[in-house]
C-alpha cells in the first residue's frame, strides 16, 4: 500500500536561510501523524510548503500519487489537501457561515455543501448559534473551531492542522483535542503540528520530533510519549 502523503528530503529556505533541511516522512490514509518540536523547528514551514504557499528548494512531495511541486497553492486544495493555518486566519469581516462557504470555494454541489455546513454545526454547535455573526467577533477557541470547520468543507483526503491549541484556555484546548480525536475516529486523515506534545502524541499513530529543520526522532505516538529524551525535552520532566 502506498502512503497518502510522502515527503522525501524536503528542503525549504527563506532566502539563504534553510528552515527545513531535508526531512522525510509519510502519512497513510486514516492515520493521525504529528510533527512536534519547539518554535522555529520548521513545522509551520513544512505545512506551508505542502499547501503550496512556499516553494521548496529541493526534495519531493507526493500526495495521492501526484507530485505537488507542479501545483500553485490555489489548486492544491482541490487535490484533497486542506490546511488550517497557524493563528487560525479566519476571514474576520465575513459571517461564520460565509467563512464555511469559502472552505467549499471550489465545490459546486450545492446540496452537499449545505449538508457539510450542517455537519460543521453539529461538530461545533456554537458556530451554528452564531452563523450570521462576523467571524472576527468570536473568541480564540471559537475561531479555531471555525478554521477547522472551514478546512473540512473542502472534503479533504488529508487535513493539516497547524497549532490548533495555540493560545487557548486549558478547557478550550481539551475541547479542540477531543474534536480531533472524534475526527480521527470517523476516519479523517490528519497531519497535526503541535507544541503541546503530550496532547498531540496521545492522539497520534505516528509522530516526528523536529529540531532546527530536521527530524531527530520518529516513532509511534505511544513510543514517543514514553521516550526518555522526548519526556525531558518536550513534556517538561526532569
Amino acid at each position, binding site marked *: 500500500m502506498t502512503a497518502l502523503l510522502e515527503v522525501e528530503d524536503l528542503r525549504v529556505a527563506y532566502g539563504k536561510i534553510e528552515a527545513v533541511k531535508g526531512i522525510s516522512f509519510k502519512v497513510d490514509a486514516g492515520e493521525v501523524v504529528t510533527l512536534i518540536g519547539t518554535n522555529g523547528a520548521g513545522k509551520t514551514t513544512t505545512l506551508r510548503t505542502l499547501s503550496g*504557499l512556499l516553494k521548496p528548494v529541493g526534495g519531493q512531495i507526493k500526495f495521492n500519487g501526484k507530485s505537488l511541486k507542479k501545483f500553485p497553492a*490555489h489548486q492544491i486544495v482541490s487535490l484533497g489537501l486542506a490546511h488550517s493555518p497557524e493563528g487560525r486566519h479566519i*476571514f474576520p469581516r*465575513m459571517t461564520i457561515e460565509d467563512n464555511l462557504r*469559502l472552505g467549499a*470555494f*471550489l465545490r459546486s454541489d450545492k446540496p452537499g455543501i449545505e449538508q457539510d455546513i450542517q455537519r460543521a454545526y453539529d461538530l461545533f454547535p456554537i458556530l451554528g448559534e452564531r452563523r450570521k455573526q462576523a467571524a472576527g467577533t468570536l473568541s480564540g477557541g471559537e475561531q479555531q473551531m471555525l478554521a477547522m470547520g472551514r478546512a473540512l468543507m*473542502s472534503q479533504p483526503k488529508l487535513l493539516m492542522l497547524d497549532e490548533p491549541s495555540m*493560545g487557548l484556555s486549558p478547557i478550550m484546548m481539551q475541547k479542540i483535542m477531543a474534536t480531533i480525536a472524534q475526527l480521527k475516529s470517523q476516519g479523517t486523515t490528519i497531519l497535526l503540528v503541535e507544541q503541546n506534545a503530550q496532547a498531540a502524541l496521545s492522539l497520534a499513530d505516528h509522530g516526528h520530533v523536529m529540531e532546527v529543520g530536521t527530524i531527530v526522532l520518529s516513532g509511534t505516538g505511544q513510543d514517543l510519549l514514553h521516550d526518555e529524551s522526548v519526556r525531558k525535552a518536550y513534556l517538561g520532566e526532569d
Partner: protein
Amino acid sequence: MNALPQQLVNGLLLGSMYGLVAIGYTMVYGIVQLINFAHGEIFMTGAFGALTVYVYILPNGTSMWVALPLMLIGAILVAVLVAVGAERFAYRPLRNAPRLAPLITAIGLSLALQQAVWAWYPDAKSARTFPQISGGPFHIGSVTIQTGDIFLLVAAPISMAVLGYFVMKTRTGRGMQATAQDPDTAKLMGVNTDRIIVIAFALGATFAAVGAVAYGLKYGQIDFRIGFILGLKAFTAAVLGGIGNIYGAMIGGVVLGIAETLATAYISNIPGMGKFGSQSWADVWAFVLLILVLLFRPQGLLGERVADRA
C-alpha cells in the same frame, strides 16, 4: 438657479461621477494595498476610447442613441486594456517590492499615459470636442437636468447594482472579499488570487470608463489632463467613504460632489468669504474636505474594522 434642490441634484450628479471612478481606487487598494495613481489616466484613456469609436470608427452623423452604447464599449475596452496591462507589466513584477516602489511606478505610469495620449492621439495637444446628446434640458419641478447628465443618472445606479451583485453574490466576488481580507488564506481555500487581482483592476477600469463617458457628455470636451484632477477627486471620494469599501466609494463621491457644489454656491454668502465661492475654488473646498476627514475620521465614513482577535 441657486435654489437648494437644484444644487443638491448638481452635487449628486457630479458626485456619482466621482464615485464611479473612486470604485477603482478602492477595489485595487482593498486587494493589493496599492494606491493606483494611474487610475485617473485609465479614466482619461477610457474617454479617448469612446471618442475614437465616435470619430474614427462610426460613420459620420451616427445618432447618439446608437453611438452611445458602442462608445461605452470602446471606453471600457481601452480602459480595461490599459489597466490590465499596467497590472501585468508595471505592478505585478513589484508585488513583493517595498510599498514605495509600486507607488512611484504608478505616478510614473500616470505621467507616461498622459504624455502618450498628448503625443500620439490625433489633435490631442489641445482639447477635443466630445459628441453630445441632442435635445434640450429636462425639467422636474424647479430642478433642471442637462441632457448630458441623463446618462449619469441611468448609468451610476445600474453600475452600483451590478457591482454590489457581483461582489456579494457571485463566487468570484466572494473570492475577492476573501483575498482582500487575507490573501494567503484565500489561496488555501482555492482562490486564484492572481486572477482576482486582474479582475479588480479590470472592474475598476470598467467603472472608470463609464465615468469617463459621463464626463465627456457632461463637459463636452476632453483632453489628456482630465484624469489628473478628476483622479485626485475620486481618490478623495474613496478615502472619504473609507478606502477598501466599495459602497463607501460611491457615498464618498456623492458627499464630495454635494459638498463641492454647495460650497461653490453658498460660501460667498458668508460675510467676508465673498471671493471664495467661485467655481475656481471648488477644488480647494474638495481637498479641504479631504484634509478634514483625514484629521478627524481617517478611517472614512464607512471605514470600520471588526476587531481581529489574535
